[in-house]
């Protein structure tokens, strides 16, 4: 187990380091010019030259990389090029807000998705099961960006029910105010994923119910509920856990669009701003943070899976 853990951590470290190089390379390949972005319509050739020198953009690339990377190791994300303030706090505050969105979403996805899946499996063939299956087909296939537009149209424009602006700190609006503003973005994020997770749970639950272990337990005469809880459920949840981790990646992707549409000041929006304005430290810092979160989630899922499924620990076959 220790060996496995060490190998995975090593892999994680490698991935994170390689990611800094990749991100740095790509970002500096981008043919834009942050100096022009900053100067906007006032950009003259000499103004651009002066600004670029001032921002240290004329140093050789390896020097710039090392400057950035060594700062990163010490927790310093550098200075935002367009906003004249340290990039670190901007990124981390945005991360915190996105984490709230993601956290609430994942909890909802896990709880609702798993319950729906189990219910569906246990009551296979019932009207609820069929309705859920139909719903699942539908929700999985709707693009995130279209969802946002539908939700805005339906709730904010037509019904005028929920505030469409994205964020109220608890200080200003109280907990209800804060929660109200989360409803739209969270609902948009979770619908597709709940469909996904519930389908998966249903299938693996069905498999587990019909498996040998369960048949044996039933043959022993144990009550149905006990059979389900002790024997079927744990096996059913295994794939679900892996999928939840992968879903974090999908969630992150969805968060970028959802935050833009609902004006939620999270990491996704910050990244879009950084890319649009060629703010290199914000771009790189934001991407590294997202990658780290994604990689850590995958690692957690891998570990969890290995812990729960002894068969994997030994060989390391299927990806």
């Amino acid at each position, binding site marked *: 187990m220790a060996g496995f853990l060490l190998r995975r951590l090593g892999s994680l470290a490698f991935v994170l380091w390689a990611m800094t190089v990749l991100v740095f390379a790509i970002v500096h390949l981008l043919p834009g010019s942050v100096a022009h972005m900053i100067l906007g319509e006032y950009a003259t050739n000499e103004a651009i030259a002066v600004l670029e020198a001032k921002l240290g953009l004329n140093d050789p690339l390896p020097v710039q990389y090392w400057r950035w990377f060594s700062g990163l190791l010490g927790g310093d994300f550098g200075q935002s090029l367009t906003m004249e303030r340290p990039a670190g706090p901007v990124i981390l505050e945005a991360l915190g807000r996105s984490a709230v969105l993601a956290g609430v979403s994942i909890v909802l996805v896990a709880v609702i998705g798993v319950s729906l899946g189990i219910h569906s499996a246990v009551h296979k063939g019932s009207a609820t099961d069929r309705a859920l299956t139909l719903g699942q087909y539908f929700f999985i296939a709707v693009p995130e960006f279209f969802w946002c537009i539908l939700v805005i149209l339906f709730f904010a424009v037509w019904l005028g029910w929920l505030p469409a602006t994205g964020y109220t700190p608890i200080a200003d609006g109280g907990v209800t105010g804060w929660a109200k503003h989360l409803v739209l973005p969270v609902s948009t994020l979770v619908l597709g994923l709940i469909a*996904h997770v519930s389908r998966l749970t249903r299938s*693996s639950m069905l498999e587990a119910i019909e498996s040998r272990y369960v048949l044996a337990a039933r043959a022993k005469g144990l009550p149905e509920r006990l059979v389900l809880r002790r024997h079927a459920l744990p096996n059913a949840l295994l794939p679900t856990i*892996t999928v939840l981790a992968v879903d974090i990646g999908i969630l992150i992707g969805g968060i970028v669009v959802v935050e833009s549409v609902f004006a939620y000041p999270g990491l996704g929006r910050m990244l879009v701003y950084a890319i649009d304005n060629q703010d290199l430290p914000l771009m790189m810092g934001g991407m590294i943070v997202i990658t780290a979160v994604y990689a850590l989630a995958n690692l957690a899922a891998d570990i969890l899976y290995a812990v729960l499924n002894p068969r994997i620990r030994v060989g390391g076959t299927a990806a």
Partner: protein
Amino acid sequence: MSGAAGAATPARRRLPRTLVIGLVVVGVIALLAALGPWIAPHDPDAFAMRMRLRPPSLAHPFGTDEFGRDVLSRVLAGAHYSLLMGFGATAISLAIGVPLGLLAALHRGWVEEVVMRGVDLMISLPPVLLGLLILAVTEPGLFKTILAVGLVYVPIMTRLARAVALELLAEDFVEAARARGEGAWHILAREIMPNAWPPLIVETALRITFAILLGSALSFLGLGPQPPASEWGLMIAESRPFIAEAPWIGLAPGLCLCLLLITVNVVGEGLRDLLDPRLRGRGHG
């Protein structure tokens, strides 16, 4: 769980109803997409300022947009982009990913390490971000988007190909082939490929859904086919200022996109039911 099929072909079974329905609908959409420019009632690019922002009517079943262009015609003209993105990108990821995965499975050791580390790296970036980065470096356009989406999904295909190949390599009949002294490429062609294609096909079909999704998301962000092309994601993006006044401009392409995605998904699931029900628990993004 070792495959019960072994070297034999899967037992004949009735085609699932869902698969048939799905294939028919996809076929119809593909036909409409191919014929699009000819069966469209109006010129998709023609301005008609007096008819701007009209709601759906007999003359314009999907209404008109901010330039007076017929939305139905634009939807028809733009259908082929989504199909091209889905199938084209998936084909690319197959063409690159499968050989890589097989390579990794056959030549364990440092080749495998390099390939798998590269895969880990690319998988660590969320697809939207990866696509954004790839496209930000070059000028946008349909083929670049297809290529970008294809590249994004190479790692998953590589992983799958490798996993399937590894499982098959552990089978008795492969051992037997090795014992007979057959070379690696021979084993690949004769023993592995014929048995590997069911899970690969299933994954491919599922992958098409995601490729269409990612492609239209990137077009939504401005990185796909350029205006006045009526790619569905782009149409949705352009409809945003008019969402309250003229929602049909965005709803029409959006609902068509959903229809396409659902049916492709249904086909994928149907194929999986047909070819390899074992995989029921494993489909993922």
